[in-house]
Every structure is written in C-alpha cells, then in structure tokens.
C-alpha cells in the first residue's frame, strides 16, 4: 500500500510538472519558430532494421534546420520507438498527439501498427501523413480523410503487372500465389481492378498460403497443373525464395512476376539460386543505389552527398536511407505549399494537392500526384528483369489504374 501511494503520487507530480507550455501556438504543434512533427517506427524488436528510415529522417530535418528551416520555423522531429507492437504504437501516438501536441504524424511505419491508430488519428483530425507501408487502405480518402500513404500500394503494383501481362500476352492464362493476409489480398484486388469481368477467365488458378505454412511447394505444383503460363507471386521473402526454386525444379517456365517486397538479392535470390531466377520480373519506383546506371546520376549524387555529410558511417546499399530521404523531400514540398498556414486542415489539403512533383531519387519520369479523390501519391513503377547477376530495368513507366 505504501509503495502504491508513493508510486502514484510520484507519477502524478511528474505528470503535473510536464504540463502546458506557455508559447503562442498558431496551430496545433506550430509556433512562430517551430513546427513539431511526430513519428513512430521500430527501433527495437524484430523489425528494427526499419529504424534506418527514422535515422535518415532525423538527419534530413537537422540539415533543413541548418539551412534555416521552413517559413522561418525550425522543424522539431520527434520520433519514438514502438517496437513494431500495435499497443505501443497506440501509446506512443497518443503521447505525440496529446502530450507533445505535434502538428501531425509523419511516415509512421508498419501495417498492423498504423492500423491500430488509424481510427484514432481520424477521430482526432490529426494528419497521418505518408504512412510507410504499401497497404492499399491508406488511400481510402472516403472513410479516413486524414490518412495518406506514399509508396505505390501493393494493389497499384498488381495493376501495373496485369497491364503489362495483357500488353505482352493478351491470351495469358494467369496463376496467382498470394499470402493470405492484407498484403497478399491487396494484389488479388489489384489484378481484379484491371481484369474486371475477365478475372475468372484469365485467372486459371489462384491459391493462397499461410505465413505459418512450412512450404508452398504444393501450391506451385497446383498452379502448374492448372495450365498457367503466367505466374504472379505475392509472397514475402522466405516464400518467394521457395517459389522461385520450386518453379525451376519442376521445369516450369512461366512468365514469373514477383512482388517488389521480395526482390532482395541477399534475402531472396541468393537462397533461391540466382540462376534459377533468370527472367524473373518485378517492378520498382526507386533508383537502386547499387545499380551502375545511376553512378553519375544527379539525383543520386545529391542523396550521396547528403549521406556523406550527415550520416557518414551508414551503409549506402541499404535503400531504407533512400526511402527516408525521398519521403522527407515530399514532405518539404507539402510544407512549402502550405505557405504560412500550417493548420492541420491545410497540411492535409496541400498533401492532397501535389501536381507532377518529382523526387530525384525516384526513377526518371515518376511524378507524384494527389487530389481530393486520389490519396496515392506514387502510382507509377518501372519493370525490371533479373539477369542472373542483377536487376535490369526495361520498358517504360507503367501507371496503375484509378481504383
């Protein structure tokens, strides 16, 4: 009993001590000298590799402040660890919104984690801007007008693949292998968007797998025996590697399209066997830092200079740093468009008013566009083919359909 009183008394005193500041707030999180931005990301736990994005963004805003900030205000970027655990995301997000009173939450990472706070953010009318996952639901402007994604959604990616297939093989017999969750189902939805009524005739077989399954070998065999000559695989790295290997081992040679989530050389192609994946098609929207094509590219050199100056010890092959840089540049454009009005309504309005905005680390020709009815900023990707040694871009940019 003694302990409990001391504990709660201490907590109360501490909380009272950390109460309201007396600065003149022009809008939530905004004063004449500062804009407060919040972020939650996994710095610890199983997904802590993504913490690199938070580090890149911290360095970026420090650089901006060094250059004078935006509209005469410094950016105060508060990033908190949620350990990729939804209850902690809820706690940290509430802390950012209610305690720190940030203007908005920027680039929160993770589908389950950001899903946990999506309704809260919309209820409180706080922008949940440029969420860092490819789930399609961040573009649902009707039900969640305060939430917006950034990267091409999985659904958009599937639309792009389907367009390519129809272009190359109008009579294709397509098989689909997808993970049985939001991520995999987004792909099925994207394929449906483009095929429409022809879905049932074009897709000869569509099979799913659980993340708990040990292998997907039986699914691959099923797809081959259904007579598919095109295979779309929406699988996370471990299962992607298994799929590539099985397809090669049973002597099946379909046009094999793989989700962008599983294009890592180290995590997918090496375990599968690089020669077994020759001809594998995928897509990307970012320039690959290891691709010699971009050795002297102006945009990439801008990024390299930023990394050298602000994060000299970082691993330049980790494209999470690229991601953080790109999405931060997009945010700067939104803030610039805000002018002097940094109210939450205007921030969201400007985020939904991007016109042909180009980000130098994205593939040439990719333009960000948003509107009141389009909350998917990036909807273009370029296809690439695995040569056995590296990914080679080919063709032109393809755009997803308006869903």
């Amino acid at each position: 009993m003694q302990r409990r009183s001391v504990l709660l008394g201490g907590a109360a005193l501490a909380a009272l001590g950390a109460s309201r500041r007396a600065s003149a707030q022009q809008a939530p999180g905004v004063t004449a000298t500062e804009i407060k931005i919040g972020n939650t990301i996994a710095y610890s736990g199983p997904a802590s590799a993504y913490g690199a994005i938070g580090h890149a963004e911290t360095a970026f805003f420090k650089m901006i402040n060094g250059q004078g900030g935006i509209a005469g205000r410094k950016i105060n970027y508060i990033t908190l660890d949620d350990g990729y655990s939804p209850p902690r995301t809820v706690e940290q997000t509430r802390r950012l919104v209610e305690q720190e009173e940030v203007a908005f939450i920027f680039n929160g990472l993770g589908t389950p984690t950001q899903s946990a706070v999506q309704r809260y953010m919309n209820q409180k009318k706080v922008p949940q801007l440029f969420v860092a996952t490819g789930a399609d639901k961040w573009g649902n402007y009707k039900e969640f007008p305060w939430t917006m994604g950034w990267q091409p959604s999985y659904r958009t990616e599937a639309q792009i693949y389907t367009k390519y297939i129809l272009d190359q093989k109008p009579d294709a017999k397509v098989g689909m292998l997808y993970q049985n969750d939001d991520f995999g189902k987004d792909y099925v939805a994207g394929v449906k968007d483009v095929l429409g009524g022809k879905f049932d005739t074009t897709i000869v077989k569509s099979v799913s797998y659980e993340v708990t399954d040990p292998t997907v070998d039986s699914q691959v065999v099923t797809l081959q025996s259904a007579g598919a000559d095109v295979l779309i695989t929406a699988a996370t790295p471990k299962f992607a590697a298994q799929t590539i290997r099985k397809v090669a081992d049973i002597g099946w040679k379909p046009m094999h399209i793989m989700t962008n989530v599983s294009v890592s050389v180290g995590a997918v192609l090496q375990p599968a066997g690089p020669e077994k994946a020759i001809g594998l098609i995928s897509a990307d929207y970012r320039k690959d830092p290891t691709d010699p094509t971009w050795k002297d590219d102006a945009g990439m050199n801008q990024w390299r200079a930023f990394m050298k100056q602000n994060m000299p010890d970082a691993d330049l092959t980790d494209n999470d740093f690229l991601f953080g840089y790109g999405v931060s540049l997009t945010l700067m454009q939104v803030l610039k468009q805000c002018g002097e009005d940094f109210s939450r309504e205007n921030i969201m309005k400007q985020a939904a008013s991007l016109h042909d905005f180009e980000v130098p680390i994205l593939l040439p020709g990719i333009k960000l566009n948003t509107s009141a009815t389009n909350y998917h900023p990036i909807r273009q990707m370029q296809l690439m083919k695995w040569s056995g040694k590296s990914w080679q871009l080919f063709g032109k940019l393809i755009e997803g359909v308006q869903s």
Partner: protein
Amino acid sequence: MSVSSSLAATSARARPGWRAVLLALGAAAAVLPAFLLSDYRLFQLTTVGIYAIALLGLNVVTGYNGQISLGHGAFYALGAYVGAILMADYDVPYWATLPAAALVCAGVGYAVGLPALRLGGLYLALTTFALAVAVPQILKYRGLEGWTGGVQGIVISKPDPPAGLKLSPDQWLYLFTLGVAALAFLLVWNLLRGRIGRAILAIRDHPVAAEAMGVPLARFKTRIFAVSAMLTGVAGALGAIAVEFVAPDSFSFQLSITLFVGLIVGGVASLGGAVCGAAFIVFVPNIADQVSKAAPGAVYGVILIAFLYLMPDGIAGLAARLARRAGFD
C-alpha cells in the same frame, strides 16, 4: 509484563491503526489522478493497472505456486480476443466481456494445468513458452479468420462513462480498471492468506512434504493454473478495451517475456510487486527510448540488469526489507 510482550502489545495496538490509514491514503492516491492528470497519462496508468492484474495472475501460479509459466501472454491474448469478438460481433457491453473472458481463460488454464502436472520446472517453462510462440500464428490461421479478423485484427471502441457522470472515456476507463484491479487484488489476498495460501506455498517449497501433509497436489496445481489464467485473461480483455484494437502482432512471445520480466522485477510472491512490475514494464521502455534512440533495447537491458543486481528480490522485496527495518511488520 515482560519487555517483549509489552512491546508486542504496543505494536499490535498500533498496527490496525496505521494499516487503515495507509489503505485510505492509497485509495485516495489511486483515485485522485483521474481528476488531475491528462487523458494520455491516465491511459498510461490504466495500462499499468491492466498489467498489474496480469502480473497478479502470473505471480499466483509462478511466484506463489512455483509453476514457471513463460506463456502467460497466451492467456492475455485469449482474454483480449474473447472480449474484442464479443464487443465487435455480438454487441456485448464492455463490462460483460470481463466475466466471459474470465470463464474462457479459466477453462483453458485448467486444460493447460492438466498436462503441466507431468512437467516440472524448466520443462514446463519451455512448454508454456511454446504456447506463447504459437499464439500469433494461431490467431492468423485462416480457419479462424471469420472470428479473429486475421491479420487485420479487430477494432473496438472505448466505452462512454455511464449516463450522468461528467468524465471522459479515459477517466472512466481508469476508474473502472482501478475497480477491477482492487477486486482482483482483494480476491487473491483473501485466497492466499488462509489455509489455501499456505498449501500453495508449501507445494512450491516442498511438494513431497506438502503431499505428506495431505495437500492434494494435482487438484491444487490445476486450479491455481485456472485462477492464474483467469486473472491474466481479464487483464487481456481490459487491455483490448484500452487500446481499442487487437491484432495477432500485439501478442507475440515478447509479451510473455515482458510479463515474466515484470514478475521478477516487481517481486516474486508479492501482491504489491505486481503493481511495481507493471509500472516497470510500462515506463522503463519509454525511459530507455529517451536515453538512446540508437539502441533503446540495450539501454532497457542495462536498466533491467541494474534492477536485478540492486534488488534481487524485486522492488517489493526491497520495500519490504526497508519497511521491516523501519519497524512496520
């Protein structure tokens, strides 16, 4: 009268007095924050209360009864999902989900307690750990998706305070959690202080002697497992309401480890320890985050090791020692 007996008489006379005062102070200190603190801080304190109930459950089976469970996150998850499914699909009022979660978890706890009889010590620890690891996968299982919502999870809403009370939902939930916690602590305190409590401790310390004294080991151990699972399940249901969201990724094996950490740091076999442990697992990760952005896990580890080194019998153990030295027995 001899010196010792007069001393004993003095302290006996003094004891009921200060205990009652302390209880009143404690109750006031627990209720007061509801009217002083911001909604966010209340949310944090509510979480502390919820974990305190969960740790109470873990303490009953591991601290007092000696059956090591590294899988209590599974019961927490079960309680949370029972509560969420009832609220989302069957429109059950929030307060009714608690008894339902209690019943289901008690049943499952009993079912787990039965094979646990054959395992002891480390084997039981590993088996319960396996249960904890399996939980997120089971929750994502396609066959149960209609119920569990799969990876998407289930979204529910915090209850509004009963009509007439001018409280915010966070304030009401805090007071509600406080009430449930008080009830849980009262029940466990009552259970442990009598004959049953002695039997439970005897089973932990010397099962052979306990059996020789006539304590039915199997019956007690399975029922204690059921009680423990019930408490942690109720905490899970409350947790679901507080966070307004349940998803398989919220209940990974790390939750079970976290609960175990809270048990040890708070103080094994101590009711107050459950509250201390809960405060530790809620606040220390945030402190670690503020100390270092680059390696919050490492900082958390350092703080944990420091606690264990300085307070080997937990925060409650330290407080008890200090209290004894000050004369409060």
